[in-house]
């Protein structure tokens, strides 16, 4: 009995040992996947970073290119005791920096393991050469080639945007797309076209042995992936014009936007003060300085600042009046230094002949005339009430692109504001307001807010006699597609036949010669046939804003420009010459009016601008 039990126990022991050995045999000799997994565990991915796509201007000039820099990498596990002082000298850093970095790695050695960390970013080639000569003395340190952005011309800092290393928050927003150490476009075109520009990372896979020496390529390099360079981007920007615009706008706050009317292509988009390309190249160093600048250079005024348009908006109201049939070009209205309404109220105007017709009202920018026009629009008997008329007016305005995002390919565009009937119903109560209450809208004040981009687009719409193409700044090119909407004409609700009547007024505003009452005679350039409209918008924070839109030539226009200068005073003082110079520069390649150009470039309005805290 006892021996029988022992036998059974021995038998059981044999079975148990056989189970263990059987499973071991299976995973060691039959199932191959553990060997594969073990290999995977020893793989070293040698990442090859792709070069980022180049950004060109419309004429093939490089706005953003690439140049080589080196990251100094450390594999803390491989580092042996070294001479901190010499290495610090070689790398142009303080010994304290090196020590603190090494301490940091040492503290996190568990999580770092056998991985490498970037110790110094984007070391210039000269420094790297010095390091390369001595690096054999510093095991664990090596250089990694990175291609970084290079800016041959100082044009379009804000547009282009900057590229920097992704942080944790960015990686969280784009799960699975980025890894530590990757670069990504953070603003401007770099961000908007990140998917095209970034390219695809490649890697070589190596296997290392137990002593952490790389032994051989994994599967003879079969699974290696070569890096795919990013697609180049061709912008619609004219680098020279952009650069010229930036120079004109220096020491002023505001924007210049230039559009090719026939295509909707943005030729120049200046926001001032802006970011210099030298700052973009090393954004890390300049970020704090930029962020603390009271004039907010990161803020792209051209698409993000909402301003009252001022008298420029009279064109829109005139066109709407014409289309509604409440205005005829030959209608004359009196102006007695303004529009008088109620008991002693007046919307003032400057001195000019009275009464005048529509064309002349545009040429001389009469305020009173548009009070009549606007009231006629709102008090039109075909609408049941003022709120309905207001909504109808709003529909027209929206069809010009005002009061909403245009849908440009530029990120963070804002929509401005066109008030609705219900807005005033809410503010004053239904039936408690009339066309007098909102009379400021007639001359582009009141509740109307637009961005400089809206103005430029409006100018292009007038230049095109009734349609626009959504402004955009990326051209279709090989491997880069753009939204088909950037080829479609957007018609306004105003018939195309109405536009020539307004354009004639704009032509006369510029080309009537000094002393004839035309508000924009400063803009005239013989032979260019510039048509324009000034605006002077009230700015509650100081001096009036100077506004001007113009296009040229009158027939078959090639360029439409909107200039908006904060606290610049009369439209004719700053915005008008600025826009005119832009037109001249673009159409003739240079400017003849060097005095004017110098005066504009040297003009400093920063003192007038109230800073944000």
């Amino acid at each position, binding site marked *: 009995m*006892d*021996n029988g*039990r*022992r036998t*059974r*126990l*021995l038998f*059981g*022991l*044999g079975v*148990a*040992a056989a*189970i*263990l*050995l059987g*499973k*071991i*045999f299976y*995973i*060691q*000799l039959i*199932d191959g*996947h*553990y*060997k594969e*997994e*073990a*290999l995977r*565990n*020893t793989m070293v991915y040698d990442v090859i970073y792709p070069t980022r796509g180049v950004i060109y201007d419309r004429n093939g000039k490089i706005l953003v290119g690439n140049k080589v820099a080196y990251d100094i990498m450390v594999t803390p596990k491989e580092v042996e005791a070294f001479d901190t002082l010499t290495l610090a000298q070689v790398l142009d850093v303080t010994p304290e920096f090196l020590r603190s970095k090494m301490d940091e790695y040492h503290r996190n050695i568990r999580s770092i*393991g*056998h991985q490498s960390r970037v110790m110094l970013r984007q070391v210039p080639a000269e420094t790297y050469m010095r390091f390369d000569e001595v690096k054999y003395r510093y095991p664990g340190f090596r250089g990694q080639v990175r291609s970084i952005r290079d800016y041959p011309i100082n044009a379009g800092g804000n547009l282009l945007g900057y590229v920097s290393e992704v942080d944790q928050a960015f990686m969280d927003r784009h799960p699975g797309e980025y890894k530590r150490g990757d670069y990504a476009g953070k603003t401007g075109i770099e961000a908007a076209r990140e998917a095209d520009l970034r390219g695809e990372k490649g890697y070589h896979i190596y296997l*290392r*042995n*137990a*002593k*952490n020496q790389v032994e051989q390529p994994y599967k003879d390099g079969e699974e290696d992936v070569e890096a795919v360079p990013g697609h180049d981007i061709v912008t619609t920007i004219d680098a020279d014009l952009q650069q010229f615009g930036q120079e004109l706008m220096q020491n002023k706050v505001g924007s210049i936007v230039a559009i090719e009317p026939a295509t909707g292509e943005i030729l120049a988009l200046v926001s001032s003060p802006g970011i210099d390309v030298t700052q973009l190249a090393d954004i890390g160093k300049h970020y704090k300085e930029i962020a603390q600048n009271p004039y907010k250079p990161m803020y792209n005024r051209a698409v993000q600042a909402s301003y009252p348009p001022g008298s420029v908006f009279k064109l829109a109201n005139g066109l709407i009046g014409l289309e509604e049939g409440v205005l005829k070009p030959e209608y004359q209205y009196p102006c007695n230094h303004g529009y008088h309404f109620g008991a002693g109220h007046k919307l003032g105007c400057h001195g000019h002949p009275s009464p005048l017709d529509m064309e002349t009202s545009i040429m001389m920018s009469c305020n009173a005339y548009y009070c009549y026009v606007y009231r006629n629009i709102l008090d039109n008997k075909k609408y049941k009430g003022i709120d309905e008329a207001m909504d109808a007016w709003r529909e027209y305005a929206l069809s010009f692109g005002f009061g909403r995002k245009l849908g440009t390919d530029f990120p963070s565009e804002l929509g401005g504001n066109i008030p609705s009937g219900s807005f005033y119903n809410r503010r004053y109560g239904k039936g408690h307001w009339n066309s007098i209450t909102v009379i400021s809208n007639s001359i582009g004040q009141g509740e109307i807010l637009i961005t400089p981009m809206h103005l430029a687009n409006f100018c292009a719409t007038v230049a095109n006699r009734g349609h626009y193409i959504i402004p955009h700044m990326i051209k279709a090119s090989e491997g880069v597609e753009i939204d088909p909407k950037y080829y479609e004409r957007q018609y306004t609700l105003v018939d195309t036949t109405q536009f020539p009547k307004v354009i004639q007024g704009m032509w006369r505003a510029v080309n009537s010669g000094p002393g004839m009452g035309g508000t924009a005679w400063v803009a005239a350039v013989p032979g260019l046939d510039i048509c324009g409209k000034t605006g002077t918008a009230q700015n509650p924070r100081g001096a009036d804003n100077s506004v001007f839109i113009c296009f040229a030539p009158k027939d078959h226009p090639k360029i439409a420009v909107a200039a908006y200068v904060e606290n610049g005073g009369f439209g004719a003082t700053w915005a008008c010459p600025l826009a005119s110079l832009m037109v001249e520069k673009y159409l003739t390649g240079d400017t003849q009016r060097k005095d004017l150009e110098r005066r504009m470039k040297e003009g400093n309005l920063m003192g007038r601008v109230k800073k944000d805290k």
Partner: protein
Amino acid sequence: MILENQTKRGLGQSVDWKLIGCYLLLILIGWVNVYSASHATDGTSALDFATRSGKQLVWIVTAFGLAGLILFVIPARWWEGLAPWLYAGVAFLLVAVIFLGVEVKGSRSWFAFGPVRFQPAEVSKITTSLLLAVVMSQPNFKISQIKSFILTALVIALPMLIILGEKETGSALVYAGFIFVLYREGLSGWWLALIGLVILLFITTLTLSPYTSIVILIAVLCICNAFQRPKEFMPWILIGAGVVLVLSLIPWLWGLLTSHITAVNELRTNLVTVPEADAPTGLSKLSFLLKIEPLHILLVLALGAIPWFTIKSFRERNLFLGLSVATLVAGIVLVFSTDFIFQKVLQDHQRKRIEVLLGMKEDLSGVGYNVNQSMIAIGSGGMRGKGFLNGTQTAYGFVPEQSTDFIFCTVGEEWGFAGCLVVILLYVFLIVRLMLDADKCRESFTRIYGYCVAACVFMHLFINVGMTIGLMPVIGIPLPLLSYGGSSLWAFTVLIFIFIALYRQEKKYF
């Protein structure tokens, strides 16, 4: 024979040298692998006392000292008398450590004296084995008697429960191995079968379904009855086969029927315009059947069968059949409480480990990480392994706790199947040798103690190696003599050498 043995023998003849040789070999293998497992993080000097291999060398030398002490200094006959006192003392330490010990990885089972840490649970194996041997070697002890059985159970359960209280599940599980000793000393083999059945039901309920578990339970019981009563062999096999066949078909038939009813119901709701008379109303009246599951049918059948078999067992005075019915009832209760036990009684980490083991959850980053990396290490070893110090899994520290609980990974990775075979055969040899030697002894005390040692080594071996290759849940217990650590090495040295001393005493005087 007996007369020849009566002369006093010297050390050379009285000690089982093969056992000691096996012990030394395992310790040497352990030390080599501890060095390999830790050299990547600790540095390369094997003898530096700051490294694990250096420290292990200290433990090994002191363990040899302990072995010498037991062989040459402490008279072997003392152990029997000391056993109750040692047992009580260790039981006291086991409780004390809960209040005075330091917390290591979630369990309070270590005393810390400066840099030295000591786990009473390791020592408790020795004292429990000793007391068990004392209790079971009493002349009036008979395991089949209720009094003896309870006493035995108490000796085992007391330290086991305290250790469970310390959350050292692994160490507590080792005590389950004493059941083999009880079996050797006369416990009915059905107890082993019963324990096996419980584990089987637990696993099938979790991985398959309660229904399948009950079908398996019925099949097992029928087969057992068939072998127990050779006269009724064929009827039992037929009953078993029939029941299993019918029960397997029920879910399938049920599926057909219910899907048909559902289809008819849908038809009726979709075609409200069809006159009532045309619609197949007969089946749709059976809609209530949809709420019934095959499990319910099974339970109704069981409720009918159980009284019938109970009466049958009384009539035929067939105790085994009666117990079978009781087992069936208990089994059904177990199956239905499995979920409760699994979700409520087990702790979170234990549940996860079991889920991973049974493949209910793939969790390669969390709980399953250790096991997966451990299996990768062993699996990548192939036939001959990657060679000493060439294990990449080992070198890069993919397997946590590699020099302690997962030391077997290093063996598997660097020495391959050949190494694993050698190590496991050495353990098997050690256990077999212990059992054979024990059986040669006249003193029941020595014999029982020998079996206790064999059971402890076996449990550690099976749980530990099973864990590294994904056969057992992750339970942190060391591999005897191989794993890094003084407590474990000392405990197994003492455990084994007390037996060698006792055995030597037998040989000396008989």
